[in-house]
């Protein structure tokens, strides 16, 4: 935090009376270890830190991302060069009618410094637990920092140590089960328990494949499978700009022309989540109810959308997508899932979803990892990879029978550019009809 604070202090004295700034900070020191066939395929460390500087003057503004060098004097020089680049850029721009600044000097600080697991211990635990199994996946660990400061005195800091081991076990027949172990305290016994659970599922996958014909089936979507559907929807679905410009898949929900099951309530619950409590544009992030008992409620609104559409900003980021989404639990007990499913599909994961018809919220995707055929409440056989094509208004609307009482916290394993801190807290969903097409 001291590195960031020093740069903020320098910038405060460097700007003129007519200039304002936002300064974001992101850093991580990450250990990445890839596994294939239960051995280390590739390993390395990444140290990176960057600033995002927004300079504002006379209704004009521009953003510049700058990678830091990790050496205070050189970092200050880079920030100074960035400031100069933006000073030369602003006169070339028109005034922005949608510039909306938050002048509050809010303060937010969250630091978690739990010791990280020792890599040698982790490697040993993985080696032992995987003994004889075909394990593939990635272990990512290390501290992550995020910061924000403005010329108006706002200051936010978030730092956390975490690890995420995202892996799968493969059967010799090519079928696989997916699992993960993430958090900030590595417990060898808990990790071994998770691998053992995956091994038990893997045994079912050794049975002969049950081949399904395209058609309509009862199905249970485990939380990780439901997450794939939710993740596609959140790709602009709750975004104020997407809703206004008819790019949201939930536009009919927000127009009141469609509804979901009354069982479905969805919130962006930043408070208490792993994500930072402030946006990159200088707003504290609010908790927002997005869907209430099947009906559209709030939207995710960043400052630009607030200015353009006359809404209140609620701290959404530039892409207006959630990062700590929660779906309300239902009443279906974990122990009753198979019994209530009766005959149909138990789907652990889905994969590669996209839209067949975006305005109609009709989507398609594949089953992947541990999908089983269930008869009379008993798992009978794994199912070959199948494609589905169905509407959100059907799956989470007219055909939704129940949500589970237990929810699962799914931490993002995404590492595009940097390690992601988003999460989803989701139940499983029992649906009366899922349409398989190929």
């Amino acid at each position, binding site marked *: 935090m001291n590195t960031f604070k020093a740069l903020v202090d320098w910038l405060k004295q460097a700007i003129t009376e007519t200039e304002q700034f936002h300064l974001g900070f992101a850093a991580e020191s990450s*250990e*990445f270890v*890839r596994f294939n*066939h239960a*051995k*280390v*395929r*590739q*390993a*390395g*460390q*990444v*140290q*990176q830190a960057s600033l995002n500087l927004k300079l504002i003057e006379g209704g004009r503004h*521009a*953003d510049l991302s700058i*990678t830091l*060098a*990790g*050496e205070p004097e*050189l970092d200050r020089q880079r920030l100074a060069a*960035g400031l100069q680049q933006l000073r030369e*850029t602003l006169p070339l*721009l*028109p005034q*922005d009618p949608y*510039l909306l600044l938050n002048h509050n000097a809010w303060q937010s600080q969250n630091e978690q410094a739990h010791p990280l697991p020792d*890599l040698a211990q982790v*490697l040993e635990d*993985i*080696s032992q637990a995987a003994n004889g199994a075909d394990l*593939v*996946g*990635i272990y990512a660990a290390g501290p992550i920092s995020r910061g924000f400061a403005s010329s108006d005195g706002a200051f936010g800091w978030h730092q956390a140590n975490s690890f995420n081991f*995202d892996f*799968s076990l*493969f059967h010799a027949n090519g079928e696989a089960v997916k699992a993960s172990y993430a958090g900030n305290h590595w417990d060898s016994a808990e990790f071994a328990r998770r691998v053992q659970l995956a091994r038990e599922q893997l045994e079912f996958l050794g049975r002969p494949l049950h081949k399904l014909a395209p058609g309509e089936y009862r199905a249970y979507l485990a939380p990780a499978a439901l997450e794939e559907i939710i993740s596609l929807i959140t790709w602009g679905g709750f975004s104020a700009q997407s809703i206004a*410009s*008819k*790019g949201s898949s939930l536009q009919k929900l927000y127009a009141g022309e469609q509804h979901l099951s009354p069982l479905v309530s969805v919130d962006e619950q930043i408070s208490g989540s792993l994500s930072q409590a402030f946006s990159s544009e200088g707003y504290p992030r609010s908790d927002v109810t997005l869907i209430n008992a099947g009906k559209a409620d709030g939207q995710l609104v960043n400052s630009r959308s607030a200015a353009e559409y006359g809404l209140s900003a609620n701290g959404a980021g530039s892409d207006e997508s959630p990062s700590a989404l929660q779906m309300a639990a239902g009443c279906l007990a974990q122990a009753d899932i198979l019994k209530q499913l009766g005959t149909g599909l138990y789907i652990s994961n889905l*994969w*590669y979803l*996209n839209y*067949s*018809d*975006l*305005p*109609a919220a*009709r989507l*398609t*995707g*594949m089953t*992947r990892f541990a999908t089983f055929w269930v008869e009379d409440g008993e798992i009978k056989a794994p199912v070959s*990879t199948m494609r589905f094509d169905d*509407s959100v208004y059907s799956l989470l609307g007219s055909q939704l029978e129940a949500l589970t009482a237990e929810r699962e916290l799914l931490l993002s394993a995404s*590492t*595009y550019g940097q*390690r992601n801190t988003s999460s989803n807290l989701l139940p499983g969903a029992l649906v009366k009809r899922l349409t398989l*097409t*190929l």
Partner: protein
Amino acid sequence: MFDHHATLKKHFGALRTSAEFFSLRYVRESGQYLSVRKNVAEPPSLSQDEGAMLTVRLNGVEAYAATHDISLSGLQAALERAEQQARQIRPHALLDLRDQQVSSDVADYLSPDLSQPFPSLSDCYQLLGDESAAVPKDERLVSWDVSLGLTHVEQIYLNSAGAELRQAQRFVFPGVSVTAYDGNDSQTRTLGGTNFGQQGGFDVISRFGLQGAAPKVADSALQLLLAPNTPTGPRDLLLLPDQMILQIHESIGHPLELDRILGDERNYAGTSFVKAEDFGHLQYGSKLLNVTFDPDIPEQLASYSHDDDGTRASKQFLIRDGLLLKPLGGALSQFRSGMSGVANSRASSWNRAPIDRMANLNIEPGNQSMAQLIGGIEHGILMSTNRSWSIDDARNKFQFGCEWGQLIENGELKGVVKNPNYRAISAQFWGNLSAVGDAGTSRVLGTPNCGKGEPNQVIRVGHASPACVFSNIDVFGGDA
């Protein structure tokens, strides 16, 4: 250009290590993304990024450390972290690389027209603003956006075997998008964006045809609003190049990546329906199918002289006359598998390690004009511009959707249809390739957004393709 080269070379020479082999890959990237949305200039998004990856090989075990600190002490510290990592993973390492050959090549590679100045930021905004203003006034046109992405990348690769490889590239990504809405349905038409990008200068924008594009894109969005849904059932399918690139990418490119076949990607990007023993034997498509890895088309996104492990790149046939010949596997995958491959070991930046990627993956032109392609179809549909893609983790069962559809009956183009989708299985689909367009139907395209790898990486890939016809494919429309 390459102004850090002398310093880096000096630092590299001063590094101390007990490794039998080590390398440094330095990347400096600057970016600029401009957009005018509904006649309002969005604030520019600019970036300056640089850092280096040090890779060591100790007793046959490789590890890397990437650092934003490129001072001598920063590089030395990174090298030591990589050494420490290599020692730590040694008891668990999958690979013994003691016998793997390394590059000692020395070369420079520059994008075409790199010395040609690019228009100023205000000139770019003027261009985008003019095009945005050219969108006709129609209350059904609810959203539009004209954009321009520009990225400069310099890379310097040095290794202890004497390799010294420098690349300086400029990438240009123009785009237009218009959404029309009639109170019930919305339809979006795009030009460029995620399916067009090239190396070069302002000439890329000219080749793309940005000036004058927006009114045409808007008109086609309005046409789609009035169009009926795509009918359901089997038809001959004519795919234009801006859908062919997605088709090549998902159902030829990814399945031929050798690291997928070797199992590295099974936890994330997936595996492949292609097996190692299929090369040289599998009839991947009809005899009309010729697929090349081609790093030599100057303007194409992934043209380069060497990949990010230092292997020299050259044009190779991966599929000839429909027969599968070679995988997309770089030097490491070739060493692991004993198979021949191509120079496609690539990293998204300094903070990610090279892995097998697509680069320029192209379909060679055939001999039919567009008129002949259409004229040869009795009951079919033309589809253009990808908007939806979904395929299983073995890259076999797919469903793709396009923005634009037009029915073809008795050799003639007929009415426009909306929401055109099709689904098939890769292993059979390419066997249905029944006609390949000539060079006049071919375009050099590409995407900046190919995701893969653990940790995840997004990389630029190029695809050039003629229009192609596939017989008897299941097509269908949407709900609206």
